[in-house]
């Protein structure tokens, strides 16, 4: 699913209103969202209520595949964070996937 988040300006920072976990430098077994515990992708761990992310439709547990075209499946945590928080970007376009979507895709493939 493609989600477009317009960052909210707070003081000197642009925030998106969610937090991420994961990364190739992190331990994937701790990820409560991933089906596959070796998945080192970037997952959304929290979404601030009423924040730009929630408004845009992001949900906790979403796995972020791309940010503005940049791949997020094989990045370190820090790189992911950076890609999301570029100062000169007002909007970030994410490509995310979630369990419900994955199941839908699987079902459609199987049928």
């Amino acid at each position, binding site marked *: 699913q493609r989600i477009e988040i317009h960052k909210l300006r*707070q*003081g*000197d*920072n642009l*925030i*998106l209103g*969610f*937090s*991420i*976990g*994961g*990364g*190739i*430098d*992190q*331990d*994937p077994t*701790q*990820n*409560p969202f991933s089906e596959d515990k070796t998945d080192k992708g970037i997952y959304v*761990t*929290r979404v601030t209520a009423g924040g730009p992310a929630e408004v845009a439709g992001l949900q906790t547990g979403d796995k972020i595949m791309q940010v503005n075209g940049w791949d997020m499946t094989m990045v*370190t*945590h*820090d*790189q*992911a*964070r*950076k890609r*999301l*928080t570029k100062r*000169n970007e007002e909007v970030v376009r994410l490509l995310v996937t979630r369990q419900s979507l994955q199941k839908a895709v699987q079902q459609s493939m199987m049928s």
Partner: protein
Amino acid sequence: EQSPSNQTSIAMMQEPQEMVEETVTVEEDPGTPTSHVSIVTSEDGTTRRTETKVTKMVKTVTTRTVRQVPLGPDGLPAMDGSSPLGSYTDSIDRRYLKNGERFITPQASSTLTRSYNSYNDSYPESHEGQYRPYGGHDGYAELSDSYGSLSRGVGYRPRYAFVPGGSYRPDDGSFTLPSRRDNYGPVAQPQVPVGSSVDLNRSQPERFQPEPYGLEDDNRSLGVDDEGYELDPDYSTVNRRTSAGVPERGRPHKGRGYDDPLDSELAEERIPYLHGGYAAPLAQPERGSMASIERLGKRSPSIDSIRKDPRWRDPDLPEVIAMLSHPIDPVKSNAAAYLQHLCYENDKIKKDVRHLKGIPILVGLLDHPKPEVHRKACGALRNISYGKDNENKVAIKNCDGIPALIRLLRKTNDMEVRELITGTLWNLSSYEPLKMVIINHGLQTLTNEVIIPHSGWESEPNEDSKPRDAEWTTVFKNTSGKLRNVSSDGAEARRRLRECDGLVDALLHALQSAVGKKDTDNKSVENCVCIMRNLSYHVHKEVPGADKYQELDAGQTTGTGGSQKKKKDDAGCFGGKKAKGKKNGDLDRNFDTLDLPKRSEAAKGFELLYQPDVVRLYLSILTESQNFNTLEAAAGALQNLSAGNWMWSTYIRATVRKERGLPVLVELLQSDSDKVVRAVSIALRNLSMDRRNKDLIGSYAMGELVRNLPSRQQRSAKNLEEDTVVAVLNTIHEIITDSSENARSLIQTQGIQKLVAISKSSQSPRETKAASHILQMIWSYKELRNALQKDGWNKSHFQSVSAAPKGSKGTAGRSGYDDSTLPLVDKSQDNEKSGSRDMIPMDELGPDGYSTIDHRDKERKYKSSDSTGDASEKEPLKNDTNRKNINRSNRASVNLVDARDIKPQPVDSWV
């Protein structure tokens, strides 16, 4: 089309290929060729300023042509007829676009910057005022590269190529200019009596401009030959074409400052000229200038490096140079324009011109009342002055070229001429011996004429409309580039610049308005910041009255209070060594609450260089700019300012901290650019002469610094140059000196492993030495030895460079450290954001803290650090548990992030 080709084939069978090529080029960048002469000069001048060698440009041009049209074939230019006009227009646009782009391309200046960077290596600790000699000459080589690339980017090359190719494909392919001339020649002659020399003049510029080329192409494609040699038909054709093409062509002219009405005239003239040109070589006997033009036309091809016909090489130049003294003004200006075209990226020609004594004539032409003449002459000089061969520059200087240029600058109001002049001066200023000469003659004039008006100082800020911005920016950029060059020349140069009335004020004002407009990536800003950096170099030693600011030896370690009364009487307060202050930690401690001295009058002139206000400016630039050179320069300026022992540096150091500059710098350590990392780390090193800075830097920056060190195992290790690695190592060394806290944090960031690896296996002796110094220092902290030994390190690692790090033990050590820091992190967690990252236990640890460095929490973090620091200013900072915790958390976060394999808990970042 056919006719011209035919003619050309008749004229020069040998150049069919070139014709084709050129045709292509012309189509590609009609603008380039024409601009080449007149416009190009300016553009070349701009680009050339930094890079003296433009050799690349020629290549580019060639390539383009070749690509465009396959060589070889019958030589008929693949002029589709349509393209010329179309492309012409495009090229014109492109040309103008280039003007705009020009300001952005950093490549040209990149090399230059580098030279300046080395210049500003003011790392006070070990080498007070280490002043690397201006690598101007090194810069040349680099510059040429960048120039080349710059040109590429800007499309100069194409333009250039155009010129040669475009004009006279049919004729001789080689130089468009010559062909033009030919055109002009035959046409001109009839024209001259008919039209006027003025027309001729006008057409001249056209010729060299992209437009003319376009015209030529058009002509060709349209079957110029059909027009025959008659002027009238030509005119009609021209008119026809003109109407079609002139509007577009005229555009560049307009842009360039030509009168609009002239455009049509020009077009007309051009076309006839073109036609004439085609016809002329063959049909018309040589007559006077026309004859020479024709000849030139024919020869030009040979001059062009693309052309391989040796026949035409040398004879052209003498004729051209002879034409420079021709009584008819248009001839002079044409000759000058042609010379400009010839010299474009062609070093041999430049040398020949010099040998043929062309330079004094050109310089003489600068004083010519007619604008076309001196404009062209200036363009030619600009091209000549560009290049690795500095003899041309010397030749220009020897015939008093510099005063002449300055004179002309004062006299003229024509923006293009000013661009050319400043461009030439920029080129000249890249040659070391000439810098003082330029300063002597032109500093005040340049400042008054260019810098001050264009910076908006003392007047409304530069919120001009677009066109005006572009205009002034070119001249401003040229001049600022020139000042940048000369400011690297040494103490005397710096002194002159500092004392120059209004210069520093204006530069700062310009920078401030640029920051305000968020336009910090352009070349002018880069130049200005570099000038500021250069001028800040050794400012503590060179500024008049500096001695008074020096801290006196021993004694007067009075408190902070006493000193801030008057600006000049504070020297006593600071105590401490007067020497190349290495470790002023003790002194700095007393200045925690240092108030800046109240000035009795507002700071002005060079004093602005080191006012703490300027810190804010640099920090804004560091925060906003993406231009590596600008970043490096701003960091370099801070580095310079915080170097040394004098009062202002102390203020600066404290101000950087208070303005939250440390996080900015630390973040820049993550930059991909070598020189930025280097400049920032040396700046941090200087800044850590201030005790509180040292602790802060140690806590926040250690991770980044360690990350910047090369490592076999590190996945994302940056591939940094030796100099940068050495700089980082030295910074680390400085930070851990006198601070076992920081040494401990170094250990915790797994720095030991890298250091041992470096000291053992690095290729560079400097790196090895620096790394082993650090290791030895760490070992000297006895209290840390236990921890080290727990990790598996033993004394041999630290004392010798040959011990191999035990990888596994190192790993174990890492976890050990992780464990040890966790509790602290937990504690500090409370101080950190109240993030309730319940998702994953322990994720509240450092990672958040770490991540928050970049986000809003960064503010908080530093704030708290500062506040705690302030509160306990009198106490050793280590006792500040708050701060300690924060430090710990920062470090821990770094650990967690770094220890990729070990981290048990996933980190969570708030975005």
